[in-house]
């Protein structure tokens, strides 16, 4: 379990996270949603240790992140897989080299075993015959899948995804969502996804945390999202025309 207690972060005197509390359970896909600028990415980066919060605590299965030494933090990070918004693939390395990189750095596996593992995870994310391609030669969806393959190659305990669907068409986005969901179940990981995509909420959101202006405004399941009367979240959820129409239909049905 990952527990966040009273997390506070500010930039140049402007608070971005204002005392966020949350827990993320094992084997569950949790979504942190909210508008741009609500503090989602800062929250994720604080959890990963890329940004140091002013206040608060992050606890990974009983291990308090901010009281760890640099080496202990590095050891913890070996248990973390991360899918960045832009993929963050090493652009001068091939797909195979990208995915093999964590294995090379942290295991003593022979090359053939590493290659077998790389091919296994690439197949797992439905990629074939791309080993020798460079990231720039792949489509956005394929790059995201390579990033997922690299994130899971070390069988992590925790998987973080920052806007995994950004820049993807709706069909590919669903493929990526389902892939993350399947992998979470398969590896029994704690998966935390930053998103503002309501399709993702409906597809894979087992637990939803809604951030607004750096505050946790609401928490619940994907079913609860559509039932809640919380104005902030209903404004967010029904901001698209499609969902607005669904909401109108729902209200009409209620009224009838």
């Amino acid at each position, binding site marked *: 379990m990952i527990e966040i207690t009273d997390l506070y972060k500010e930039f140049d005197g402007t608070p971005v996270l204002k005392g966020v509390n949350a827990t993320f359970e094992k084997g569950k896909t949790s979504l942190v949603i909210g508008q741009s600028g609500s503090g989602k990415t800062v929250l994720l980066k604080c959890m990963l240790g890329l940004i140091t919060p002013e206040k608060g605590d992050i606890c990974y299965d009983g291990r308090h992140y901010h009281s760890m030494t640099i080496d202990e933090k590095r050891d913890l990070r070996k248990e973390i897989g991360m899918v960045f918004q832009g993929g963050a*693939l090493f652009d001068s390395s091939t797909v195979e080299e990208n995915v093999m990189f964590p294995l090379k750095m942290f295991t003593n596996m022979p090359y053939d075993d590493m290659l077998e593992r790389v091919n296994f995870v690439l197949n797992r994310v439905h990629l074939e015959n791309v080993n020798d391609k460079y990231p720039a030669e792949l489509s956005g969806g394929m790059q995201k899948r390579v990033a997922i393959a690299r994130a899971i190659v070390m069988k992590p305990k925790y998987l973080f995804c920052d806007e995994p669907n950004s820049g993807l068409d709706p069909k590919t986005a669903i493929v990526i969502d389902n892939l993350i969901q399947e992998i979470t179940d398969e590896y029994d990981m704690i998966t935390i996804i930053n998103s503002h995509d309501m399709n993702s909420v409906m597809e894979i959101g087992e637990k939803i945390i809604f951030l607004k202006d750096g505050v946790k405004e609401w928490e619940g399941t994907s079913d609860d999202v559509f039932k809640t009367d919380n104005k902030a979240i209903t404004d967010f959820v029904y901001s698209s025309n499609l969902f607005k129409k669904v909401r109108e239909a729902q209200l009409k049905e209620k009224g009838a």
Partner: protein
Amino acid sequence: MLQQVFKRPQKPAVFKDFIFKEIEDLGISSIGIVAFISFFVGGVVVIQTALNLENPLTPKYLIGFASRESLILEFSPTLISIILAGKVGSYIASSIGTMRVTEQIDALEVMGINSLNHLVLPKIIANVFFYPFVIIISITLGIIGGWVAGNLTGLVSSTDYLNGIRSEFVPFHITYSLIKTSIFAFVIATVPAYHGFYVKGGAIEVGKASTRAVVWTSIVIIVLNYFLTQMLLGK
């Protein structure tokens, strides 16, 4: 920054591969331009020295002597280092800067890798240990270029030139030249790496960081050159 850079590499076998890759990218790929510049500048040094020695009583072998000393003491270690600060320094700053703005450095950190050690230490080792060889090549080709120019222009005969090259040779000047080179090589790896690593923003900021890196590396080399000369050759 340097404290993290000089930590023990996480995987020595992988680290060794990175050093060889950096030697190829930063060192071997620079030999061509260094050879070209050294050969022609060697020729120019000989022509200018010959043209400035107007007194017929001045022995011609001094042309070879003066050219050798200029090449060993200043041209090869300092001027070539400034040229490498432009070529290699901009490469280091822009490649690390691009990795920063595309979150590749964050990806390394999230994996539990000491990104400063992983990205910068192989560059420092490759530069510090390989650039002295580049400078020896530069000195050699500069002297050959001077000999060719002297012969082609008829300003100095082969015998006089080679006598000058051999006369009053001080082996410590080579040591001085290589000490300077190693220190400049360290600067060429670290100053641009610093500018690239801490860049914020996007493509334009990477470009600005690259320019800043070249300017500061050149300034540091010029200032260090003054102090090193005073320390190593001053009495």
